[in-house]
């Protein structure tokens, strides 16, 4: 989830208060929406200490409240959109590629591997977590992942066992952008050097069993949307195939419209999912967008509610709580109502249709059925 876009839409305090700014979190007084948590009535009482050092300090309180509010808002938006919209693309976690084959692939060029393209789903996130493979001999296979502009994205070494499926977990899962910088479907190349690698077995992206959709790699082929079989849901997200080349110029290779159905011995473990929060905030906050502004206001109220509740219910006394607990209870209840009013609005007005994950529910009228 793109929590930062949501979280950073509001600031913590528009001054060097609640107390000294020496230990304030970075960007505490930056707010593209112009809203600050400590500006809410009742929370200005957080001011007045000589020092803000130590655990439980007001900066930590404000910062944690804003982070928790952002997570809750993202979750509530997801629920609201699921209520109001129809899911068009199923999430997928699993392997792309078979685990075994009874024949090897004969490679004739210097480099080979798997080429894959991601469906340009604006609200999609595809994460590569693990790389697997089957080779004819036991060996260490050095792999490098490039994008179509020849940028090296990651390296990994697969300890292959002869004729058996092996895998390597990446040190850090890699979030792969679904679009390149031109807004087109992003392509990636997972490469090994042929001379240093045992012969790969002829595993395919799919055996085709139980899958009635086209899994071939053909540039321009439309990605099928909702796929009933969860095991085949990756086809909505990824097109993969094999390639070989005598150079590492992928800008040229990425123009080749097709790839082999065999992936040159490699398999990919991916998590592909929709991030519906992008329907309310994606990339940079834009104050000109009504959806962004309403989202920031919702976050403002929810952050205030969490601060008020933490103050009210903490056994660790703070002046604002000791002095003002009745008012804080009333404000908390009021802010919660304000928050859910905005969540309702966002559930209806968030721009989710172009994101590639949800669409408006299709309703059939009686008149249409009868006709």
């Amino acid at each position: 989830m793109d929590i930062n876009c949501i979280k950073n839409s509001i600031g913590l305090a528009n001054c060097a208060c609640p107390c000294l700014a020496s230990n304030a979190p970075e960007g505490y007084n930056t707010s593209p929406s112009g809203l600050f948590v400590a500006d809410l009535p009742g929370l200005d009482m957080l001011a007045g200490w000589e020092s803000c050092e130590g655990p439980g300090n007001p900066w930590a309180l404000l910062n944690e409240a804003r982070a928790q509010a952002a997570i809750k808002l993202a979750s509530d938006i997801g629920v609201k959109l699921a209520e109001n919209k129809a899911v068009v693309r199923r999430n997928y976690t699993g392997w792309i590629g078979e685990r075994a084959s009874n024949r090897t692939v004969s490679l004739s060029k210097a480099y080979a591997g798997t080429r894959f393209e991601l469906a340009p789903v604006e609200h999609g996130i595809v994460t590569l977590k693990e790389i697997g493979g089957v080779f004819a001999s036991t060996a260490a296979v050095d792999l490098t992942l490039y994008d179509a502009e020849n940028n090296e994205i990651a390296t990994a070494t697969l300890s292959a066992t002869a004729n058996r499926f092996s895998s390597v977990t990446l040190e850090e899962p890699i979030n792969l952008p679904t679009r390149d910088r031109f807004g087109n479907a992003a392509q990636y190349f997972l490469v090994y050097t042929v001379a240093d690698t045992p012969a790969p077995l002829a595993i395919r992206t799919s055996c085709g069993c139980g899958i009635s959709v086209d899994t071939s790699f053909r540039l321009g082929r439309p990605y099928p949307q909702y796929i009933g079989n969860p095991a085949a849901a990756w086809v909505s997200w990824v097109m993969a195939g094999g390639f070989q080349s005598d150079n590492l110029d992928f800008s040229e290779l990425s123009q080749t419209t097709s790839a082999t159905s065999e992936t040159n011995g490699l398999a990919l473990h991916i998590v592909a999912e929709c991030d519906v929060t992008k329907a309310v905030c994606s990339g940079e906050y834009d104050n000109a967008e009504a959806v962004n502004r309403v989202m920031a206001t919702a976050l403002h109220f929810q952050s205030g509610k969490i601060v008020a509740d933490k103050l009210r219910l903490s056994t660790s006394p703070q002046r604002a709580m000791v002095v003002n607990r009745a008012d804080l209870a009333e404000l908390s209840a009021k802010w919660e109502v304000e928050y859910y009013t905005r969540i309702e609005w966002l559930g209806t007005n968030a721009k989710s249709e172009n994101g590639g994950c949800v669409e408006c529910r299709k309703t059939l009228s009686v008149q249409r059925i009868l006709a």
Partner: protein
Amino acid sequence: MIINAICRALADKVKEICPHVSLSGGLVTAMPGQYGALPVATVSPLHRDTKHMAPDNMESAIIWFESGPSILKSSNSSIDLFTVDIRLVIWLNTNRITGEILNAEMSIINAVRGVNFDTENTPIKAANIEYTGEEQEGPQVFQRWAFDEAQNHLTLPPYRAAAHRFRVSYALARCADPVGTKIPLC
């Protein structure tokens, strides 16, 4: 007014020599709240700010003063002698204090005992402070105030609340220096 001035001097002395006291309030006023009265006082050193004397885990120690009425003991043609019982309330946050907690408390008591009043520029011409003892510690220290002990645990570790009594005897001159006016501060 006189008791207020005495308590401000006591609060200033505590603030001056007890660095562990982060909030040193003078004589409190009972401010009505939804659940009852809350203590409010001006704070040292300048007494320009008024604050709620509410326990707060961001503070290391809070003190304030409460008082009974002053009682005239004797008088002559130029001076009246009074006594007033002062109650010093101490709230300590041991998470923010280093060293022995008793020293933290005792240094506050000693600061109060050691105060010297300005007898040249004020009508107070002499004063003596006598420490008359400690009250039972615990929630009853805040009995007068609408704090929510059940929720806030203001008197349980790491916090400590104590009340100490002092008798202040002072001589008040029957004359006073003339007072002018000034342009109010913006």
